């Protein structure tokens, strides 16, 4: 009997082995993104103790629980404000929000736009599987027009969000989108996003073969990866207004935004420095207006 040499899984150290097997379905794309994330972390984070991961609720909300990091599985839609508080209270930490499209953009949509507006120093990774999967495949804010979900059995009649456009228009300094097929690009974008100061955003389109693909008769997870491969159009730097996703139409992928704008922390620090300077100056001038005897000097 021959024994093959043991090969170490390159991302094992970043995963909680004692929590395996995970809850995701066969063919689900979330695990793929976690693998990419682990590789990105290995590449760009030197002190893993300072990397904090925050998730909301849903299938992607479970990511926090599988990563061997300080990790928070918060409430539905509220990962971003939790992360904002965490980062403000300890700016030394690197804070990543990892959640799904329903969590981040529907129930958490208000927090998403405001975190982007204030350029909060967090990275947001949005796994977009076009539906609410944990609860059985309901339509969400990203479900393409005419696609079917359990709460839209005759097809969606609302326009979905174009996430890169939403993120950019609210002020995100880094915006990229890939599909689960683009593992190298995802890893690179996650690395770049984490290296950015301010609000960085990476959307990853993933298969949900159990629900979205099955109900819409789009085949297996593998079929979907093949479809992503053939129907993704990489347009780096394209105007994000061109990133709308229509049912079974081409998906525009790429890095769209990589800009520089002072982050929330930088703005706060600058403001506080000037406030403290002014307060010191005012105290000093008040001191000088006092009679000499009151200044604590010997007359």
């Amino acid at each position, binding site marked *: 009997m021959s024994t093959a040499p043991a090969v170490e899984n390159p991302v094992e150290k970043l995963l909680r082995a004692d929590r395996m097997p995970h809850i995701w379905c066969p063919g689900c794309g979330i695990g793929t993104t976690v693998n990419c994330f682990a590789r990105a972390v290995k590449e760009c984070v030197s002190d893993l103790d300072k990397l904090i991961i925050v998730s909301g609720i849903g299938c992607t909300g479970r990511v926090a629980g599988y990563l061997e990091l300080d990790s928070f599985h918060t*409430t539905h839609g509220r990962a971003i404000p939790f992360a904002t508080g965490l980062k403000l209270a300890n700016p030394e930490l690197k804070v990543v929000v990892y959640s799904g499209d329903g969590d981040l953009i529907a129930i958490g949509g208000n927090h998403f736009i405001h975190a982007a507006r204030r350029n909060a120093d967090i990275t947001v990774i949005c796994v977009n599987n076009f539906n609410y999967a944990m609860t059985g495949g309901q339509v969400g804010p990203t479900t393409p027009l005419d696609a079917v979900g359990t709460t839209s059995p005759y097809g969606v009649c609302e326009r979905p969000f174009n996430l890169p456009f939403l993120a950019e228009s609210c002020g995100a300094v880094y915006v990229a989108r890939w599909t689960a097929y683009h593992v190298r690009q995802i890893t690179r974008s996650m690395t770049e996003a984490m290296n950015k100061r301010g609000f960085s955003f990476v959307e990853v389109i993933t298969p949900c073969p159990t629900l979205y693909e099955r109900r819409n008769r789009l085949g297996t997870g593998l079929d979907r990866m093949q479809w992503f491969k053939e129907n993704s159009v990489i347009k780096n730097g394209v105007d994000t207004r061109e990133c709308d996703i229509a049912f079974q139409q081409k998906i525009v992928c790429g890095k769209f935004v990589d800009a520089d704008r002072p982050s929330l922390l930088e703005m706060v620090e600058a403001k506080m420095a000037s406030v403290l300077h002014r*307060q*010191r100056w005012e105290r000093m001038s008040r001191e000088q207006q006092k009679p000499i005897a009151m200044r604590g000097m010997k007359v």
Partner: protein
Amino acid sequence: MSGDNDRILTGAHFLDGDHACAEGAIAAGCNFVAGYPITPSTEVVERIAWRFPSIGGTFIQMEDEIASSIAIQGAVWAGAKAMTVSSGPGISLMLEHIGLAAMTEVPCVFVNVQRGGPSTGLPTLPAQADMMQARWGSHGDYEVIALAPNGPQECFDLMIHAFNLSEQYRVPVLFMMDEVIGHMTEKVVIPPRNEIKITPRRYTKLPPGEYEPYVPGDDLVPDFAKAGDGHRFHITGLTHNEKGYPVMNAECQEQLVCRLVDKIRTNVEQISFFHEDGLEDADVVVVTYGISSRVGMRAIREARKKGVKVGHLRLVVVWPFPEDYIRHLAERVGGLVVPEVNLGQVVLEVERCAAGKCDIISVQHAGGAVHKPQTIYDAIMEAVR
């Protein structure tokens, strides 16, 4: 520049309850506040926003109350002492996160400057109608601690106590002010730094690798670790085991939820805090909390002038409710008079504990004003009749 001289404004001041509350939080060591404007609580965060830069605190006005109530919890996990401040409609939005703080055992303070409700109600006028919401507002079984100050001085003093209790028991503490208390201006004495007792956070002494976030101590409260210290812990609002990992079964649920409840219920005597006045030979006792105590005192004084033996029990800590104390009290008095600016909330607890041993008179008020002393006086007279 951020020495204690800037932080604790030792001396006598003329402050309203909202401002005193802010100073109390600062004196307690609070260094992170997230909030959203809402009458009549806004002055608390305004003072915090004005005061924090020079003492190294962080204030952020979030996009709503939901965000505020969870931003503070992120900050606590990063090592901050944190609170948020609101009033009825905002507190209603925060309830899910009061549950999260109870479930994940986050020490933090929620200030509720109560106004008339339901819904938008009476933004600029008082009520005490959120008392049951404070106790039961979030879903599921849990326990919190709720304090009810009755003036600006107590807004200062009890804020320190509120933070201390939250640290000791790792629970959200609700600070139940009301519009009158918030906007009442009185003398507030801020003591010197060395007279202010602060309960430190219960940080674990275990090294990374050995620490598990929900292993309870002898008092059922687990030790805390902050994010970034290498423990690599997992925290979830799901039912979880001592390691913090989700476990979806009835056994784990019972173990966890019973502990969350028992860590407060078994310590009711230590947590309870009330003022007694003339209870020794009382025929009737007026049971009050918050602003109602001040109106009650006037009624009690008038009744005593008429020779009525009337005592005053003022609850400072309303939740957990001092059940045994009220039970024993009910056994030796003729009646308990309970004035509150609501249509009968805390009186339900009084009635439950008294269990028919004495008369209970609920003195209700729908809100928008405080009671007239006469109303409470009449109730006292009715009780002795």
